[in-house]
């Protein structure tokens, strides 16, 4: 019999995610080997998402581990195994947010909440001799977003969730997600294009200043 999904949208499982359902069910029953298979399958994309969200591979590795530990211990609470993927992302998102919140308080992080002005002081991190490439611009532009905007944007742009899925995942209103996403994309675009525009001038100015 098909699983009852209540009022949840039927989540479009890519083929391989669907193939993992069996393991979700077994892991929920306490099967460690099945959970290891889930880890093997999911950890790369969770890590990838977290790395973009917090801006540091070291922290992302740690948070990835925390995410899976939390998932293992709270798997019995998962009602519908078809929701496993967004559920796992929700845990990862919470871990990232907790980290960013804590980081803002104690100023221990690669980047914090960028509530600063446009001057983008994080640019100072860039070696002036180094080309500010696409991925560097992405990293810096992401850093200018609030934690909430950043996770929403990444959940869609990187992880591929729809607004409705993100809303369900984060316990938010769909309209709220929609406008958060829209603002995030607009702000990200402004920041990215500004970096793209300013990079050559900045490099030149710095090189001049060193002499």
């Amino acid at each position: 019999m098909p699983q009852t999904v209540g009022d949840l949208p039927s989540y479009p499982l890519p083929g391989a995610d669907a193939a993992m359902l069996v393991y979700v069910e077994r892991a929920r029953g306490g099967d460690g080997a099945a959970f290891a298979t889930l880890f093997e399958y999911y950890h790369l994309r969770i890590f990838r998402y977290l790395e973009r969200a917090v801006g540091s591979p070291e922290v992302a590795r740690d948070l990835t581990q925390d995410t899976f530990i939390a998932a293992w211990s709270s798997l019995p609470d998962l009602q519908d195994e078809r929701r496993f993927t967004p559920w796992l992302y929700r845990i990862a998102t919470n871990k990232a947010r907790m980290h960013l919140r804590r980081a803002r308080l104690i100023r221990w992080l690669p980047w914090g909440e960028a509530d600063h002005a446009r001057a983008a002081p994080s640019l100072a991190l860039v070696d002036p001799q180094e080309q500010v490439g696409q991925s560097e611009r992405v990293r810096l532009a992401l850093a200018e977003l609030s934690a909430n905007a950043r996770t929403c944007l990444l959940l869609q742009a990187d992880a591929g969730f729809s607004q409705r899925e993100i809303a369900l995942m984060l316990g938010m209103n769909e309209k709220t997600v929609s406008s958060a996403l829209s603002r995030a994309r607009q702000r990200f675009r402004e920041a990215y294009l500004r970096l793209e525009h300013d990079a050559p001038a900045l490099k030149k100015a710095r090189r001049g200043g060193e002499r």
Partner: protein
Amino acid sequence: MSHPLPKACPEWADVLTTLHPDDLSPARRAELEAHLATCPSCSAVRADYERLERAIQQMPTSRPLPAFPAHLLAAGSAPPSKRSATNGSLASDSLRLIPQKGTLMTPQRRRRGVAAALAIAAVVALFAFLFRGFTLSHTASGPLKTPTPRSEITPTAQATFSSTPLPSQWVAMTTALENQPALPMLAPSNPNIIYEAAADPADSGKVTVLRRSDDGGQTWHNLSLPAGKLPPVDVASIAVSPLNPAVVVLSLSTFSGNHPDVCKPALAQSGGGSPLIALSGSPPCTQQYLSTNSGKGWSLLHLPGNGAVGAPQLNQVVLPNSSDLFRAQGQRLYAMLGTAVISGNAISSSGGRIVSSDDGGKTWQYADAALTASGQNICDYRPTLTGSTLFAITQTGSFCYDFLTSTSHLWRSDDGGASWRQVSQFPALASNLAVVSQGASVPLLYALPANPYNNGSSAGKGLPLFVSSDGGKTWNNASIQGIPDDATQEQGPLATFSDGSVIAEWRRSNGTDILLSLSPGASSWRLVADHLTIGAGNVLVTTHQGADTLWVIGQSSYQGPYTVSEFGQNK
């Protein structure tokens, strides 16, 4: 802002940011498209959003955790459903890679502790490996009954081959294309000939470029795309005949969940339960095209039943890329067709079907009728190079790689698949067959214990490969000597050298991958490639004038859109 940005019309500003296909109704999307056609400014803004989404996706990813600490799971923690509220947190703490010494460590301290411990572990592992490399070179040249080694490891800071230095940096040969839904494919009979494809990066991506190089990737010719409306592509594969580099099959697969419009017939046709998805094989979810003239023209590939070349097993639906999607025996071609349908929580899959073609790929027939009639799931197969013998690994259970309930058997046919007999049961679940045919003697067989995490007791190295020297009647564990202590098994056997050595892949604690090979009768694995910073995914051995060349075709992720970042050769 000192420079002007193209500005969106205010009433369209929000809609322009909506990129996910599910976030706009078809009517709204049509309105948007109509507006974009007449408004250059909004078009430019929309193009920015699309470009920036790709930029986010293309941002390189660092190395994740090397592996799941399986022994921790097996060692102490109770099943989550049986945990009480009080012991739950203890159990989850026991999962940590690095045990916490104190309960009052701050997060920073813990993280620094983890980093320091990992750093120490990496240094120790490096020394351990270098020392092992030194030992290895003696072993390889010692009095053991081994074939003359083509190479040996010398104890330098970077382990090297004596013949040619191992590439410390793999050079990408095909970097111009982005969003490749399939790995580039080399023609096994002439590796200078390479086929590759690029797709639109959007979810409903279509193949947009198909091209061929005849000179190892230096210059490329664009090929015509198959005629007609191409389906959206979630995964694709390119299969090149080992007998003729002009014979190519292009398979384009989509998932019904992503593209219900494409796969509706598949959804409708399976009654009972409600299938979430047809992974492959149920037309029109998969469309396959054959070219017999090097990709100049294409026709639909005709197969004896449902199934996709390139998706022989469930895990290869994710990775439908291998240099040996076609396998040759004399002038006969074999392939495996994969079908898998998920219904509710159950996966109904008959594994794959073995098909053969005697006319260079134009027509195909089943070569496994007698085998599937026995109710087995065929999980891998391998023909001998000549003659008419085929081996197949089958599994009982609900599908191949049902790690937890299946048993695996080896079957053999000596008449090209017309009749089959069971040869043995594997000591544990097995997959990935390699057959080394050495003249007229009994072939040497290798198989992979299906899941390195399976028994929970495995060290990181995974379980030793199964090896049989009596044609599959009895199985022994292959050596694990020579495998670095910090390595975790990735995949294998991936290919064989012409001296019968088998190649498999491991991941080091520093996140790079290595390929090791084990010669027939040797007691220890040898390093054949290192510093692979992504999973090799696919290797190919070609032989020219008695010399083997190892090709590594890698990808950064097993999820699309695929980006090939390493692609090189090691002679």
